[in-house]
């Protein structure tokens, strides 16, 4: 009796997991596999795999005709720059907040925390664009990188929390050894907060790679700043591609593939990290 009950439970769980997995990967597979189909095949029937061969030329078309090479370079440059700026600035600020006393600390910190609770949304892009154009930065990729990196409040507080969890004796020992503030930060703190910096880096990279709204707004009058994500979504509105689903899907695949590859390689360690966490916990 108990055994059959367990079996049914197991079966139920199995079906549930199977459904969830299909639900999760089906749209991605549709995009990737669809990007190898012909347009008529895509729009005609419910076949999962391409029936008339795999059409790699869709990618060629996307790269050449839709100018994706340029946008791919933009994406890479922008994402990596944002990542570097985020890691450097938020780790410095997080450290200062966690360890040092200074005039106005309480006030500034309350601003950082307070702004987390005010979500005005993307309307703030207008004043940001206005400000960047006053500094002449709206035309260059630097302006877009800065706008995408943004205030970093959450990253700073994340690093701060992590630094606070480190024993204070380490700093004190370093002070006795004659280290300056900068020495303490770079020699003592930096190596210890690497795990949280990796998190900041990965998430900033992901966010800037995937961002649509900010990049779209900033590139409205300067199309050369477009990233892959924006270029792909705008295929929907361009005269030719709007009806060419295979090109749209090839574009979508080009945009999601790099991040999938990053994830694929980081994935093993990701799971190792999960199990390690379980053992420690």
């Amino acid at each position, binding site marked *: 009796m108990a055994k059959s009950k367990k079996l049914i439970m197991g079966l139920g769980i199995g079906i*549930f997991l199977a459904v969830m997995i299909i639900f999760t990967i089906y749209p991605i597979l549709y995009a990737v596999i669809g990007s190898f189909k012909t347009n008529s095949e895509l729009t005609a029937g419910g076949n999962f795999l391409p029936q008339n061969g795999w059409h790699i030329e869709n990618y060629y078309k996307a790269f050449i005709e839709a100018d994706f090479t340029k946008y791919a370079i933009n994406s890479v440059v922008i994402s990596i720059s944002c990542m570097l700026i985020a890691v450097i600035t938020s780790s410095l600020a997080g450290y*200062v907040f966690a360890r040092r006393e200074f005039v106005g600390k309480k006030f500034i910190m309350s*601003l950082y925390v307070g*702004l987390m609770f005010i979500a005005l949304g993307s309307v703030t892009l207008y*004043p940001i664009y206005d*400000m960047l154009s006053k500094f002449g930065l709206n035309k260059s990729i630097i302006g877009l990188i800065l706008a995408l990196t*943004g205030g970093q409040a959450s990253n700073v507080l994340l690093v701060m929390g992590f630094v606070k969890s480190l024993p204070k004796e380490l700093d004190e020992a370093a002070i006795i050894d004659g280290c300056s503030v900068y020495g303490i930060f770079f020699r003592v703190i930096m190596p210890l907060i690497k795990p949280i910096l990796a998190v900041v880096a990965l998430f900033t990279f992901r966010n800037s790679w995937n961002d649509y709204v900010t990049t779209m707004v900033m590139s409205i009058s300067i199309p050369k700043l477009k990233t892959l994500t924006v270029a792909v979504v705008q295929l*929907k509105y361009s005269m030719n591609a709007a009806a060419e689903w295979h090109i749209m899907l090839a574009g979508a695949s080009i945009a999601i593939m790099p991040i999938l590859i990053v994830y694929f390689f980081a994935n093993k360690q990701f799971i190792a990290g999960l*199990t390690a966490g379980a053992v420690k916990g």
Partner: protein
Amino acid sequence: MHKKITPPVSSEKLKRSIKENVKSYSLLLPNLILFIAFSIYPCIWTLKYVFYRYGGIGTGEPKFVGMDNIMRVFRDEVYWKTVKNTFVYAGAKILFVIPLAFLLALFLNKKRRGNGLLQSVIFVPTIMSSAVMGLVFYLLFNVYNGQINNYLMDWNIIKQPINWLGTDNAMKTVIITAVWGGIGNYMVYFIAGLQRISEEALESAKIDGANGMQTLWYITIPMLGPILKIILMLSITAAFNDMSNVMVLTEGGPNYSTMVMSLYGYQFFFPISAGSIVTSQYGYGAAVSTVSAAIAGAVTIIYLFVSKKLDEVY
């Protein structure tokens, strides 16, 4: 307060204090500049323009109109429809995402071969661009050529194509895609929470003769409590700010049926879709966004309050 009472500090001490402050600020400054420029300044700008009427350059100077914009928000029926939509969207998203993520965490938390792989598969949507996937979903759910309708018709489940993106169904479709994008994240949070539950507690429950359901109900869920609260809080803030997925999939339509309040404020500044023409109303857009932020903030505060009250009861 103390500092003011103490006698004047010696010049050397002052010097050192200044030096220390300079050092602190030199480290803080790179981030502080970004923070002021990209977080503080835009907020102040937006709050200022709540009281102005302005349509951008070439349309005359900004004109101070006092509370007019705010009053207009309160009588704007379309806006309150978008507020309602936001609550429906956020509510439904959370209602599906949290239990599904919890169940997945529960089943995949066990150390068994393949679970690691399954976890990382479930997590994949989290790393995807919601805008790009919005485009993919737009094709998938397309009424006429979309693969979903094609399958359903091939399998004779339906005779006529379902109008997934029509007035009646668009919100459901948007919610499906939001659930798709949200589960992985919260599953990872839940797994982290489950791993904090000590083995001993579970073991002793087993020894006491509790079955799986009982352990789940009396040990696991109560012990997840504090983390569950935070997960809920995160999911509420996230759901109230979602925008780009709606923007790409339905553009807020048809007929405002999927327009959420963040997107409604945005459209007074920028076009939602290429080709749509907006009459820029920066002042009114600022007012809409401010009221929306206040609503989202109020929901968060109410949630914190309720969860605290519940703490006291139990």
